[in-house]
């Protein structure tokens, strides 16, 4: 049986503001007024989160992590969206949004515990307005809709006060688009005119299944039947993602309702470090997508158009080295959870029967360790 070849290809209606060659292009609906310094800032984000990813993969290989879900190739979507949300907006990621986490100020180390098996989360969602990673495909989209219902009830939508008005950003994948939960979240968002922006990172694959298994039409079109706009962007174009997400978030904050953004991108690494794409993926497809790399095009723009000095890139490289070092040493230093902690936080108020089991358990751990 021949390898799968994707039928769906970037369409003319796909919003692009920066070509793979690094040319700025204008889009009538999405004018983006951005300085070269800001673009350099985005480059830094992209570069650093890729380094985070690289380090995590290395740590997994060395046995320091049990698993890692790589974002390679999807940096632009995450940084573009991550820089479009305001700090008081709320963000609901899947398990692959390390770039979003970075933009929300979450220390990369705080992401590793989940993959190392030392905890199930690792950071305070409230502190960063960044929800826990959600592993059950699609579940977080309903949480996002519910959170948006809360915003409406709190009166922080459509007041006209930019510091007050708040929106929700919810990420999910192309495979997730098939889940009942995701479609129900569209029902709630549409019928309730909720201030939520859905970003579907269409990286063309749900593990081994090409996006065509989920839909024979582009995923952004899913939204219209639920009563809100859908739009496809070049997911490897950080500027397009920034501009379009910003606009969608503004609409949401202004009580104009939800938007679905399909970020057309590609998963350049295996699904996770456990996966073996050779069983289902064409190497040649990777080659074509390499030419659309989300970082290269920004670098090309900065060097060619913005005359960004070489020092800048060196500085970022230095910063990346430091960050990598921080992750390498920090990961190994991550504290193992204490056995008894298994019983903590199952309930806010621990029932006696659970407390009794906790004590029995403690004795065993005692005995085993002694």
């Amino acid at each position, binding site marked *: 049986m021949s390898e799968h070849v994707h039928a769906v290809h970037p369409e003319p209606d796909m919003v692009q503001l920066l070509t793979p060659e690094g040319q700025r292009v204008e889009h009538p609906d999405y004018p983006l007024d951005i300085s070269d310094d800001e673009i350099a800032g985005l480059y830094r984000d992209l570069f650093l989160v890729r380094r985070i990813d690289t380090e995590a993969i290395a740590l997994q290989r060395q046995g320091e992590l049990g698993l890692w879900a790589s974002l390679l190739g999807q940096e632009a979507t995450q940084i573009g969206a991550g820089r479009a949300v305001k700090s008081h907006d709320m963000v609901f990621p899947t398990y692959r949004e390390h770039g979003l986490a970075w933009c929300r100020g979450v220390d990369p180390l705080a992401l590793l515990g989940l993959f190392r098996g030392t905890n199930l989360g690792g950071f305070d969602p409230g502190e960063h307005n960044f929800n826990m990673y959600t592993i059950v495909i699609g579940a977080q989209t309903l949480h996002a809709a519910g959170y948006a219902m809360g915003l409406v009830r709190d009166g922080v939508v459509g007041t006209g006060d930019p510091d007050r008005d708040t929106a929700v950003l919810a990420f999910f994948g192309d495979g997730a688009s098939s889940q009942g939960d995701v479609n129900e979240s569209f029902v*709630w968002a549409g019928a309730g005119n909720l201030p939520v922006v859905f970003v579907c990172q269409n990286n063309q694959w749900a593990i081994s299944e090409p996006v065509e298994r989920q839909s024979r039409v582009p995923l952004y079109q899913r939204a219209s039947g639920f009563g809100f706009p859908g739009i496809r962007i070049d997911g490897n174009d950080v500027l397009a993602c920034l501009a379009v997400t910003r606009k969608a978030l503004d609409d949401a904050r202004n009580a104009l309702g939800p938007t679905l953004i399909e970020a057309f991108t590609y998963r350049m690494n295996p699904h996770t470090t456990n996966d073996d794409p050779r069983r289902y993926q064409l190497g040649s497809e990777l080659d074509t997508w390499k030419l659309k790399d989300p970082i290269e095009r920004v670098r090309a723009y900065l060097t060619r158009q913005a005359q960004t000095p070489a020092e800048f890139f060196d500085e970022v490289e230095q910063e990346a080295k430091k960050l990598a070092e921080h992750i390498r040493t920090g990961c190994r230093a991550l504290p193992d959870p204490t056995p008894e902690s298994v019983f*903590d*936080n199952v309930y806010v108020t621990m029932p006696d029967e659970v407390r009794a089991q906790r004590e029995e358990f403690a004795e065993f751990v005692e005995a085993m360790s002694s």
Partner: protein
Amino acid sequence: MTSPMTMAKALNEGLRKAMEADSKVVVMGEDVGKLGGVFRITDGLQKDFGEDRVIDTPLAEAGIIGTAVGLAIRGYRPVCEIQFDGFVFPGFDQIVNQVAKFHNRSAGLVRMPITIRIPSGGGIGAVEHHSESVETYFAHTAGLKVVACANPSDAYWMIQEAVADDDPVIFIEPKRLYHAAKAEIAEEPTSLYAARVVRPGEHVTVVGYGGIMPMLLEAAKVSAEDGIELEVVDLRSVSPLDMPVVLDSVQRTGRLVVAHEAPQSFGVGAEIAARVTEAAFYSLEAPVLRVTGYDTCYPPSRLEHEWLPNLDRVLDAVDKVMEY
């Protein structure tokens, strides 16, 4: 509370009190607004608290529970109504994988003070999926608490305590008691997770909860006529179980019959039997017997009264444990 009221009314009043007590409490579900729910438990609440706090949701249980999770993250205290027991299952994933686990996943940083009201059990002559007893599924799920009211006074107080609880609570409402006998509302609540001896007796302990409690009390009356005094315990909370109360009783009677509507196998009766046998091995004069629904699908309503645990079966079990 002065005048006696039905359980339906008591739940309605309790919800009203809960909403008055905390502006973050929102009631959500199918038809809970103008209709007041198919059982009228939320009657009048939307009128008085508005559409923002009493929410007619789209028709999807996963959506109801999933958006409740989001509301909880935002600091709300959602009370979800599942229209009938059998329809909780489309929301099962959100309950088991999110509501139950979120607080633990977040290392205690995010709470899920969600109450999920489920009109439960049979006896009302309904069609398929409208008479299920689903409590065991939730009792077996760490992170959830499961309670069942069996009289108007408990209904009034327990719903308020469940809503005020910072842990998620599955609130089982025995629908066949909604409009059964009216009763006075106690001045004070009993702790939500405490079992209660509703009739003292020296010979056999009979434990149950929810819709069958009146029948168990009836059994105690009948049995008393034969000189066998049943000590009837209303569990009130299925998870956690208030074992001290049950064990104290069994230590005195030495005999235990557990009754519930849910199918017998892998049900609540099994857990109680296992715990009691372990904790009171030498006090038991007889094995713990179970009087429950059978291990079948819920029958067509013409047969439900034969199928449901009934007086005869309870008395028969009592005779059996007495014979040991």
